[in-house]
């Protein structure tokens, strides 16, 4: 599971993780549940249907498949699988029953979504697991606790019956060592705060927390260096660049801002370390995230020891 504050690059990191875990001949499934088609945009393919499709090849062989999980489709599939109720699903759709359930009890929708994740994780073919790893681009930190703590969410609503049974089954997988929730952060104040809050919340629910994944890390240029106008003026002249007062002043200001930023980043990194979770770092991509950038991030994860069991 990959969560993180909105804007931290959670979908990108989830995709890079699915690539890294598939490296060397493995097969992974990358899932999204919020109907955003973020995976399709990232891999630059048409919107994903409700079917598992191969979306990329992984470094050194291996493949990533992707699926956009839709609560309605998941329900129809579920009804068909367990009750042989093909027609019933259509009737439910016609009456808007899913919207109904999602509105009065969003926990029920989450049971359907996490139920599909469980199904993919535990699916076997000829005695073998179909996927070496399943990576979920999960809801953001503000909603992750509710989303994953499905039993608590439906407990007040369904004290017995099929929903209760299903949510208990999902919860058992989520609390098992098969699951790991990774939290994506940036070296910025709000994301670090939300990372800390999410880890506290998840720990309370008994769902295993994995790593803190620090995204968009820049090389710490200028760390510890003292920048003076005189030195810059000399250096610029030596490099054959204009060294007028305005240019020198602008560059000194930029260097000062940059160092303020570095000091803040150091402090924030320290706060993340204090959370006591293993940390992974992903480099900042100056040209924005494209397909090539995803492989760069996947390689960075592989180099830090990320691999499927």
């Amino acid at each position, binding site marked *: 599971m990959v969560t993180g504050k909105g804007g931290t690059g959670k979908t990108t990191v989830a995709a890079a993780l699915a690539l890294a875990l598939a490296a060397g001949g493995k097969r992974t499934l990358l899932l999204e549940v919020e109907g955003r088609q973020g995976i399709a945009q990232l891999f630059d393919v048409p919107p994903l249907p409700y079917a598992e499709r191969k979306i990329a090849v992984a470094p050194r062989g291996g493949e990533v498949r992707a699926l956009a999980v839709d609560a309605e489709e998941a329900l129809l599939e579920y009804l068909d699988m367990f009750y042989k109720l093909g027609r019933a699903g259509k009737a*439910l759709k016609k009456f808007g029953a899913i919207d*109904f359930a999602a509105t009065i009890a969003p926990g029920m929708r989450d049971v359907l979504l996490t139920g599909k994740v469980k199904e993919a994780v535990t699916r076997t073919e000829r005695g073998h697991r179909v996927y070496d790893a399943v990576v979920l681009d999960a809801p953001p930190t503000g909603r992750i606790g509710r989303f994953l703590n499905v039993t608590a969410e439906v407990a007040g609503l369904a004290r017995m019956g099929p929903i209760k049974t299903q949510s208990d089954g999902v919860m058992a997988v989520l609390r098992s060592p098969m699951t790991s929730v990774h939290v994506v952060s940036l070296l*910025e104040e709000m994301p670090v705060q939300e990372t800390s809050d999410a880890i506290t919340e998840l720990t309370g629910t008994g769902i295993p927390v994995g790593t803190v994944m620090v995204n968009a890390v820049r090389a710490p240029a*200028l760390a510890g*260096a003292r920048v003076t106008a005189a030195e810059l003026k000399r250096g610029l002249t030596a490099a054959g660049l204009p060294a007028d007062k305005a240019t020198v002043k602008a560059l000194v200001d930029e260097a000062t801002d940059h160092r303020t*930023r570095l000091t803040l980043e150091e402090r924030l990194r320290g706060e993340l370390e204090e959370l006591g979770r293993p940390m992974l770092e992903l480099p900042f991509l100056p040209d924005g995230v494209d397909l090539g950038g995803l492989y760069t991030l996947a390689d960075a994860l592989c180099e830090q020891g990320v691999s499927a069991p």
Partner: protein
Amino acid sequence: MNAPPRLDLDAVVRNPETRIVVCCGSGGVGKTTTAAALALRAAEAGRRTVVLTIDPARRLAQSMGLTELDNAPRQVKGVNMVNGGELHAMMLDMKRTFDEVVLAHTEPDRAEEIFANPFYQAMSSTFSGTQEYMAMEKLGQLRAADEWDLIVVDTPPSRSALDFLDAPQRLARFLDGRILRLLMAPARTGGRGVLKLVSASFSFFNRVITKILGAQLLTDVSGFVAALDSMFGGFRERAEQTYNLLKTPGTAFVVVAAPEPDAVREASYFAERLADERMPLVGLVLNRVHRTGALDLSAEQSLAAAQRLDAKGDSPITASVLRVHADLVQLVARERRVAARFTSAHPHIPVAEVPAEPEDVHDLDGLRRVGAALA
């Protein structure tokens, strides 16, 4: 390409005709900060102002004296009041606002019954549209009280800026909707807790739901729906009233974005939607914009010069500074390209830029700096 007109929000918030400012935009773009900065600016210019925030960052909330969810505005300390204005702030308590709506529309006994129902509890404290509906509801209440010169509203942290406009009606449609009426049928015709067969297809539907949900749960749903009966029409009516309030001339929409592709795309959708709805958009606030004072020194020039210095073993500090500058110039260029996606599609919408600061805003002085950038 021509630069877009410059947005002067000072003129907007000082104008006595402006009674409501709504800050919209996708999550994580600084809506709350923008709303708070505009409210502070208006208060210090002499207007009696209230800012309704939804989910402020902890330190920003503390700086305004907001330590807990509190459904009534509280005066913010440290505001300069020489011009006769005041700033009050409140954080939306979604559940309590929902309870108030129920109480306003139903008998106390019925209200107790609704509050005790597990479905009401789940629905009134989760986010699928409830937050947006309640934010609009609270805005309607504040406006109706007519105690304020200006109300500034921060919108909920939804994925899409459009949710603020759509979610309340979605919830209202649902609460007045077809499914509920179907489920209601037994209560109306006197059957208690058991769903009567109102039609062949419904009976089939009913069997399916019973099978999936279990009988106990259906009884709860049915009870919830029956209890809500007295309120039918109320939700939709209120949602429509507030929606119409947003179309009145005293309302000004501000769309907020950061110079990032997703945020700018959302801002564009939102601007188009407001135009369709004939709702008054005053402009775009672009937060966290990077700037350089040495734009003439290009990234390529800087990197090449840094390499020359490296090769000579001369002034490694200058080489590092040049690399930092090259990164910044590239970032500035990328942000401009992203912003141009909005400004070329909407060349007449005024834009105000707030420069990026190394640290987040978390005190009144920080808000004043943002406010000054918006003026």
